[in-house]
Structures are given as structure tokens and as C-alpha cells.
């Protein structure tokens, strides 16, 4: 879904950002597993950082790959 004159799709920007965010959030979730914070959030036992970070990585990877520069050439 590239937009006219620009060669890079907006979805590439979004995918890359989600990928970076996913890595950061998953990483902090794994770190919290081994070094639990002093002040826990409600339902921290469900480890939302880990599965939300993983979700962002999957979404980000799909969009980054699908809308990578030069696709279809």
C-alpha cells in the first residue's frame, strides 16, 4: 500500500517501529522474570510484557517484511 510518489510505505515505518518496541518490551519482560520489580502492577503474574512484546514482534515483522523497500522488483 505504497502512497503515490513516495517509495517507502507508511506501513514499513509502522512495522519497523512495532518490531523495535516488541524487542524492548519483551526484553524488559524477560528481565522482570529474573529481577522482579519492588512495586508490582496488578496482574503482573500474567507477565503481560512477555506476550504483548511477542505480539508486537510478530506484527512488526509481518509488516516490515511485507512492505520492505524494493518489494516486487
Amino acid at each position, binding site marked *: 500500500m505504497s502512497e503515490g510518489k*513516495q517509495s517507502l510505505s507508511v506501513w514499513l*515505518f509502522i512495522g519497523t517501529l512495532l518490531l523495535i518496541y516488541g524487542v*524492548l518490551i519483551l526484553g524488559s519482560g524477560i528481565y522482570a522474570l529474573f529481577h522482579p520489580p519492588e512495586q508490582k*502492577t*496488578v*496482574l503482573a503474574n500474567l507477565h*503481560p510484557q512477555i506476550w*504483548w512484546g511477542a505480539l508486537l514482534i510478530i506484527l512488526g515483522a509481518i509488516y516490515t517484511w511485507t512492505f520492505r523497500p524494493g518489494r516486487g522488483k
Partner: protein
Amino acid sequence: MALPLAFLLAGSRRLLSLSGVDMAIVVIYFVAVLGIGFYLKGKTATGEDFFLAGREMTAWIAGLSFVSANLGALELMGWAAAAYQYGILATHWYWVGAIPAMLFLGIVMMPFYYISKTHSVPGYLQLRFGEPSRGLSAVSFGFMTVLMSGINMYSMALVMKVVLGWDINFSIWVSSLTVAVYVALGGLRSAIFNEVLQFVLIWLGALLVPILGLIEAGGWGGLQARILHELGGKDYTHLWRTMGSFGDNPMGIHWTGIVLGLGWVISFGYWTTDFLVVQRVLAAKDLRAAKLAPVIGAGFKMMVPFIVILPGLLALAVLPMKLTGEAQAIATGGHSYNEVLPLMLARYCGPGLLGLGITALIAGFMSGMAGNVSAFATVWTYDIYRAFVKKNAPDAHYVRMGRWCTILGVLVSIGTAYLVMQFLSIMDYVQALFSFFIAPLFGTVLLGMLWKRATPAAGFWGLLTGTASSIAMWAWVKVDPSALKYIALSPRAKDMAENMYRALWSWLICVIVTVVVSYITRPKPESELAGLVYGCTALPSEQHLPLYKRPIFWAGVVAVVFVILQVIFW
């Protein structure tokens, strides 16, 4: 004064601190939006590029941008707060107060906006009614836009103050200058691209709160039971069944106010004539995309209560403290309604997720601000500067003016942000503004598009008297609060109810004046109305398209889902 108090509060009270990974997420977001602006600068050469994104957006991009431009401070902070105060009734602003109007824009009105090749809503008024109507509309829109932008900034600064203890000035200047840079560089195209990015971030950053909240509350049934227990049996979870009387619901409004004031006048006025949102659709690549974009937007709009209203309801059920109005919160050191969303973020989001949630809020504020600024730049440049100050300048001159005007608009908005701080309720203030300008404008545009007998003089006088009457009614109640029983039909009506009815009356006054003046003045010949008015315009047929590609089909699907939701939450 609220301002010095805010200064005192800043830094002295915070819900939590951001960790290193949270800060990294916020900083990366700012780098990304600025990067998009710099990347698109090279793609923005002409006026059409800068002000209308080259008219080459797909239906999906235009539709997501259409919703995102509206998903600013008003949505995220204001409606979560309203849900805490008024319960699920706040959802009316997303469903009956948005969906029918968005579908009407896409199917009925968009062809006239698009075929006329106008660059703005005031521009359409100029084509239909002449320069006086355009001038009045452009000036009132510009005034409203910078005020709305100020509201966005204030809300953003409030979040940063409450959640992080950041200085209110730092928050306002950093975010607003970022918006100024990326909109000034890439124009509407940059604003639209960033709005799509912001839309995704808002969802992914805010979605965890309702998911985890529902788990904690025990699902929707558990949430209802908890609210009933906490609020002594008051009904906060049904949309319509408490609307039979002003006194039966926490908003103090009757269903006629919701249906006629909100669902008809304010909603249709905002979604079909506010250039902030209409501009996104005008950037579509063809008429089918322009018609489909609001329909796509309506589909996503229906889902937004899940991340905005539900957190407010969940806060009623799970937060251990009672939230109050802004003044009481400041006096007692407690928390105000406007802090609902940050409090819920703090409750569920640990390091990393908190940064994403905060980024979602910042993205919401920036998308709203960018929407205001880019629309303001277009209306100022095309409908005020080119129309009344400097005609026939080269295209590059107007692009330069648009860039400078973007920066000027941000600076004026910063000034208004400090004014907004004096108001206790953000939402009620916004609703008052809507009823001043938007409701009469809807009457003028609607008659202009659908009634060929409406004359240029009638368009101007209808708009002027409608706007003036709205301001007069507002002032009347301010001076004499007992006048509320005439304006809102009940002395018990709350501010929002008053705004609904004031919008309805000002719309009626606009329509009546327009009709009366039309019959005593000379209409335009039909040959001059081609492309502007129903009955004088040849609308392209869509019969050759398969059903699933027709905007009317998807509008029907959205309408059916809309009705089902009303029944489920009746």
C-alpha cells in the same frame, strides 16, 4: 489562578516514574515522527501536495487518518473521564453521535465535496454561497481550531504532570514544536502518515488496560456487578433504558437531547462539516476511495469505546480511591476524573508497557494537534490569505505561507493552552465550542448541498444568525443560570445536556433563517450549481462494480453492526 497552581503541582506529585526502557520507547516515537516529516519534505513541492497530500491517498489510509485526527486528547482523556462520571452513556458520543453521520458523509455528502474539487469546507461555501459565507466560516473555523489545539496541549501536559511529574511547560513546548516541524515539513501528507502511525500505537498502547481490567473485574458481568455494588444500585452500564427522564441518569439528559442534539445536529455537524476531519477524506485518490474512507473510519470508530469508555467503567469498579472534579482534587490532594486513564495505565502496565501506553497518549495528543494545525494552515492560506489578502500569487508562495502558518498556528495554540487551564471540565468546554460554530454550519452546508433554492444571501445570514444565537444562548445561561430551564428544557440539565439543546436550537435558527431569506432573495441559476447541489450534479454510477467494492454495501454492514450494538447494550 489555575496556572500557578499547576506549576506548584508539577514535580511535586506523580503517579510513577518511567524506567529506561519506557523513556527509550517515548524517545524512539519522537524520532520516528520527525523522521517521517523529514522524509516527506522532499515529496512536497506543490500546493496540492502540501494542503491535500496530492489527492492520492487510498481509502484505508484516508479512513484511518480520518478517525485518528479525531482521536486526540478529547477522546483519550476526556471520554475516559466522562465514562467514569456518566457511565456507559459516554458511548453515545461514539455510536449514535458518530456512526450515522460518518456514513452520511461518505454516501451522501462526499460526492459533492469531491466533485466540486474544493480544497476545504469554507471553499465549498464560497463555490455555493459566495465570499461572505466563506469568510465567516473560515474565521470561525480558524478560531475554533486554535482553541481545540490548545485543549490538546493542555490535556497532554496534564498527563505528563500527573503521571510523570514533568513540568507542564516542557511537555507543551516539546510536543507542539515536534508537531510544528513535521507538519511544516511534509504538510498534510506528513500529518496523515503520522496519524496512521499514531492510530496503530494508540490501539496497541491502550488495549492492554481493558483486557487486563476485564480479567481483574471478572468479565463484563463482573464489571456490572461491581459497579452496582460501588454506586448503590445506580445504572451506569445501559445505553438507553435510563434516558426516559432527565433525573434517571447521571448525565441529566433526556433521550431527545441525545438523539436530536447529539445524534443529529452536533454529530452531523462535526463529522460532515468540520474541515479537520473532512480534509483527510478530500485527500483520497478518487471518488470511490473518498466515499469508502468515512465508512472504514466508522467501522473503527465503533470499536474505540473498548479502549476509551471501558477503562473509565473499569476504574469505577476496581480503583480503590474515589475520583472527583478538578477543583476538589486540587483542594484535597486527590485524583480528578481526568486522571482516569493514567491511573489505569499505572495499575496494569509495568516497564516497557508503561512507555508504550504513555506513547499512545502522546500519539493521541499529537495526532489531534496535527489535525488542527494542518487544517488551520489550509483554511488560513486558501480561504483567508488568498481570498482576502493576496490573490493570484505563485503556487510556491502559498506553500511557503502554509509552512509559516503551521508554525504560527502552533504558537497561537500554545497561548490558548494556558487559557484552557482555567476551565474545570475539558469536555464540556469543547462541546460548547462545537455548538457555537459547528451546528449552524451543518445547517448551511446541508441546505446548500440538498436544496438548490438556497440563495447566497440566505447562506450567509443563516450561518451568521445561527452562530450568533448560539453564543447568545450560552451567555444568557452564564449570566442567569435559571435560563437553563428554557435552553435545555430542564433546570436539572448538566452542561453537556445544555450544549446538546443549544446546538439543536442554533441549527434550527440557521435553517429557518436560510429558508426564509431564500424565498425573498434571488437564487443562483442552475447552471452555476452543477457539481455542488443534489439535482444539479451527475453522480457517477457504481453499478459496474461488484457488490463488495461498493461503499454503500459496506455502509450497510456498518449500520447493521451499529444497530446490534444498541440492542446488546440497551
